[in-house]
């Protein structure tokens, strides 16, 4: 059994402190209705060095293990932070051997201008709706309907299918044949674009490795999104506890009614369970093989998708009519959660993957 330590907890509390000071309140609320992207905030976080946490020291980062990003994402979730933190912290760290062929990875860390991950593998379910990308003779073709922050990116990291498995290729978004169309976003914290590549020459590619690198990126994306969802659920819970302790009906706080109290207690237990699952998954992820890491990440993400949605739905319910409006934070929590729920798989999709992996295991 791994040690029950909270890897990276100190980074999490630093992020928490900063966002409490410099982000919460009006600024957060304004950004949540600004299309999911704010160049100023991205630059500010880069300036703070947040994007380099897991980047090796020889590249100017802090060299922390990827698992230490977990508490950071929990904190980002708790403050409903807007922007490409996933892309800007995870991709430069995982792809650091390729910084020479893709210098924009370094720029993302320093300036906050995002790298976009063009990945048709954000779901297994009805993949035809999402799109596909293929690589032949160093040339990329295909389209992906929803790519986070592609419209703002200085580099596209494209996951493409080859005969030797999926690989990551790098493309400058200004290359002829690249078409990026910004699309509306229903996620208050993310900007989306459609990306189409028409016989575009890749500027470079990570070596074919049977899909190992792609699997690793997706696993860590799932783990970090699970952490972020846990943070969002915590936020929705906190707001709800405050609200039902103050809001009075029938001459008393509604939190004194058992019908309300028991829903809130379930939210508390579920949010606690999710937080502990994230902590345990991060601790176990550090030494896990690619296959074990995948199962860990599917598991954490599956549970996060289910629990965060349930907690936010209860939060909206307990806020009554106010919960249904954009004037309450819990509505933003819910919208954010619904967007992240299916990003790299919801519970239904991932449970099938987990089940298949376990039943195939000898």
């Amino acid at each position, binding site marked *: *059994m791994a040690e*029950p330590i909270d890897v990276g907890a100190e980074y999490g509390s630093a992020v928490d402190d900063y966002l409490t000071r410099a982000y919460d309140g009006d600024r957060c609320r304004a950004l949540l209705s600004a299309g999911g992207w704010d160049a100023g905030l991205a630059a500010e976080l880069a300036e703070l060095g947040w994007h380099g946490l897991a980047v090796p020291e020889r590249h100017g980062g802090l060299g922390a293990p990827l698992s230490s990003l977990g508490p950071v994402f929990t904190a980002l979730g708790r403050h409903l932070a807007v922007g490409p933190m996933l892309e800007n912290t995870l991709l430069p760290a995982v792809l650091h051997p390729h910084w020479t062929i893709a210098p924009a990875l370094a720029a993302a860390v320093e300036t906050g201008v995002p790298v976009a991950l063009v990945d048709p593998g954000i779901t297994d379910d009805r993949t035809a709706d999402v799109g596909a990308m293929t690589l032949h003779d160093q040339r990329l073709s295909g389209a992906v309907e929803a790519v986070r922050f592609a419209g703002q990116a200085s580099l596209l990291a494209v996951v493409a299918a080859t005969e030797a498995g999926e690989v990551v290729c790098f493309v400058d978004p200004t290359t002829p044949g690249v078409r990026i169309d910004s699309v509306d976003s229903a996620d208050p914290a993310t900007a989306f674009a459609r990306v189409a590549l028409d016989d575009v020459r890749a500027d470079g590619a990570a070596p074919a490795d049977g899909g190992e690198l792609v699997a690793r990126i997706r696993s860590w994306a799932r783990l970090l999104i699970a952490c972020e969802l846990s943070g969002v659920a915590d936020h929705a819970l906190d707001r709800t*506890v405050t609200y*039902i*302790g103050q809001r009075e009906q029938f001459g*008393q*706080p509604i*939190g*004194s*009614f*058992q019908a309300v*109290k*028991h829903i*809130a*207690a*379930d939210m*508390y*237990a579920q949010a*606690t*369970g*999710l937080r*502990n*699952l994230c*902590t*345990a*998954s991060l601790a176990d992820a550090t030494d896990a093989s690619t296959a074990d890491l995948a199962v860990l990440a599917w*598991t*954490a993400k*599956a*549970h996060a998708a289910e629990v965060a949605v349930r907690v936010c739905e209860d939060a909206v319910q307990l806020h009554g009519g106010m919960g249904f409006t954009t004037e309450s934070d819990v509505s933003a929590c819910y919208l954010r959660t619904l967007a992240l729920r299916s990003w790299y798989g919801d*519970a*239904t999709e*991932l*449970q*099938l*993957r*987990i*089940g*298949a992996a*376990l*039943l195939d*295991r*000898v």
Partner: protein
Amino acid sequence: MTVQPPSAPTESLDAFRTRARAWLAAADIPEVPRDIDSRFATLRQWQKTLFEAGWVGIAWSKQAGGQGLSHLHHLVFVGELARAGAPQPIGLIGLEVVGPSIDRYGTDWQRHELLPRLLSGDDIWCQGFSEPNAGSDLASLRTRAVADGDEFLVSGQKIWTSWAHLSHWCALLVRTDTSVRKQAGISYLLVDMTSPGITTRPITQMTGDREFCEVFFDDVRVPRANLLGGVNEGWAIATHTLGSERAGATLRRRVECEVALDEALDHLRAARGSSSDDRATAAVGRAHVAMRVLDAQTRQTTARLVADTGPTPMDSVDKLLLTDVEQIVFAEIAALLGPLRAVPGARARGLLSQRWAYEHLYSRAASIYGGSSQIQRTIIAERLMGLPRG
């Protein structure tokens, strides 16, 4: 419980696990009979075997007749028992609830007279707490004990008392004062089950088991020397022990669920061969996620147990999540039985119908016993979240 002197070197958990595994590999592990009387006899003998080999009372102090090791050692052994397919000792009520109370609150006579036989399985204990009208509201219990010279005269009725008809002793909560707050008028008696005036009636559970009983006390004479703690101090003793054993019970149940899920997986794999089975795949996925949630949660429980924090309202979060998980896991597995669930001797997808139907039914009790889920939610809301009392 008494802390062992710091000079004694404690066996490492790994060494302990290796020793336990080796012993269990060589042990004659009994088949558990279905018939309730022979099951009781077999499991009692098994406790004796375990006791003689030094595997009972692992975390009890040596003074109390235990092994003087930690709770973690105890949990390692619980896990090894489950993995070896071996039953737990029959006297869990004695070992987990009553014994620690006697050790902590008992007189010298009570400790010396009762604890050795409780450990060895010579005496099996039952717990006379709940009553027909005192379930979740346990403190409203009405079984009366009236002082009469050197004795108490006890009259009343208990229910949900596991193994009462076969037990030797009963830990009994009785009302000794009706004029005070209900919690302040309760005493804790240690009652010899052979005393005249006690009758037991087993109740059949929906699992088919008949271990629960009703117990009737009709002017039963209990010596004053059998009072645990002082008069009217019973509530504090009962709640302290119930609370402090909850963490251990959660961890034990986790291991049992884990082992059961692994076993179901083995059957499913063997029966599946190379064909795909979406229903089973989804069920296994969902059960695995649930088990991992419990695993993660119980790491915190273990940390609390090691730090010896004592009972906390966090135990209620554990209980609620444990209940949730075990009900999900066994519901998912049992659903794979399909229509063959109704045929106990049949196999579906390699799963023996009666075995998994039993587990599923048993899991439904989890949200009722040991403080119902509704009680846990109230504790969480009021003590952890600070919501106003209704």
